[in-house]
């Protein structure tokens, strides 16, 4: 009788575990077919996620722009780096080895310092500018560059820039 009880208990455990695995498989299948839930954390002016263009399209606009040109737009970007002092600027990938420097209107809001590789939607003004040596060196300092790395910067640089009045940080669940 005792042996029978133990055997029954073991069988119960194995069957229960098996069922749990099956349930997990079912849940996984469902997740694949479900739409991923997306939340947005808002910074600066409240904006909506609709109608944002892809970074690739933005790059084609930037390539055609001259220094001083600007266009109002909304674009989805993947963050590369954020100012590690204040979060007062960030760079983002535009594809094909290009990046955009994003700053925030009127220094009015900052972004979290730990959002590298996160997706964001930025709304504002895209423009091309010549960034001075002093300013490039300042950004290098913010990134934690060494004295030698900073001294290598000796020429103004044509830069794809973006002045954002509102940013949505994409939080995928």
């Amino acid at each position, binding site marked *: 009788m005792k042996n029978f*009880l133990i055997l029954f208990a073991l069988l119960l455990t194995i069957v229960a575990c098996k069922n749990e695995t099956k349930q997990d498989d079912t849940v996984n299948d469902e997740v694949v077919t479900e739409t991923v839930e997306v939340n947005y954390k808002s910074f600066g002016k409240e904006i909506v996620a609709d109608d944002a263009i892809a970074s690739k399209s933005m790059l084609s606009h930037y390539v055609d722009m001259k220094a001083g040109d600007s266009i109002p737009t909304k674009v989805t970007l993947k963050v590369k780096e954020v100012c590690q*002092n*204040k*979060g007062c600027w960030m760079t983002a990938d535009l594809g094909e080895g290009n990046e955009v420097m994003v700053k925030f209107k009127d*220094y009015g809001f900052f972004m*979290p310092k730990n959002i590298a590789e996160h997706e964001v939607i930025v709304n504002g003004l895209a423009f091309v500018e010549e960034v001075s040596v002093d*300013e490039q060196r300042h950004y290098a300092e913010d990134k934690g560059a060494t004295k030698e790395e900073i001294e290598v910067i000796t020429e103004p640089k044509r830069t794809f820039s973006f002045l954002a009045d509102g940013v949505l940080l994409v939080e995928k669940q």
Partner: protein
Amino acid sequence: MKHGFWVIILIFFMSCNDKTKKDEKAEVVYDMYVPSEMTVLMKELYAFNLQLKKQVVNDEALTPLPEQFLNIHTAQLSNFKARTERFKSFSNIFLTAQKEIYNTKSDISLKDRFNNTINTCISCHSLECTGPIPKIKKLLISQ
């Protein structure tokens, strides 16, 4: 032997509890900048000079200079900034210019005295922290 049965049942329920814990989602913690005393003082300076600009433009009586702005020499800077000799020198130049706005015996016009003050801010920021410059430039009174 009977104990063995109950031990197996207990392990079974404990394993169920563990699974519930694993399902809980990890909360994201964002690393936001915490403003330093100097950052707060700079924001107050900006708000004060914006008010002063309107008074100068509208030829109204000027609000007296708050004593707290003398704290620019002692306000704690953000962790990544050092109070360099250059910064101390710019702080003195700025305060002298800001006080000069109230010098009614000056040969320089009130608008120019105000703009000189704002230009000292821009000069310092161009070497210390370029980010707020576009915002500061908006304080300048067009001639």
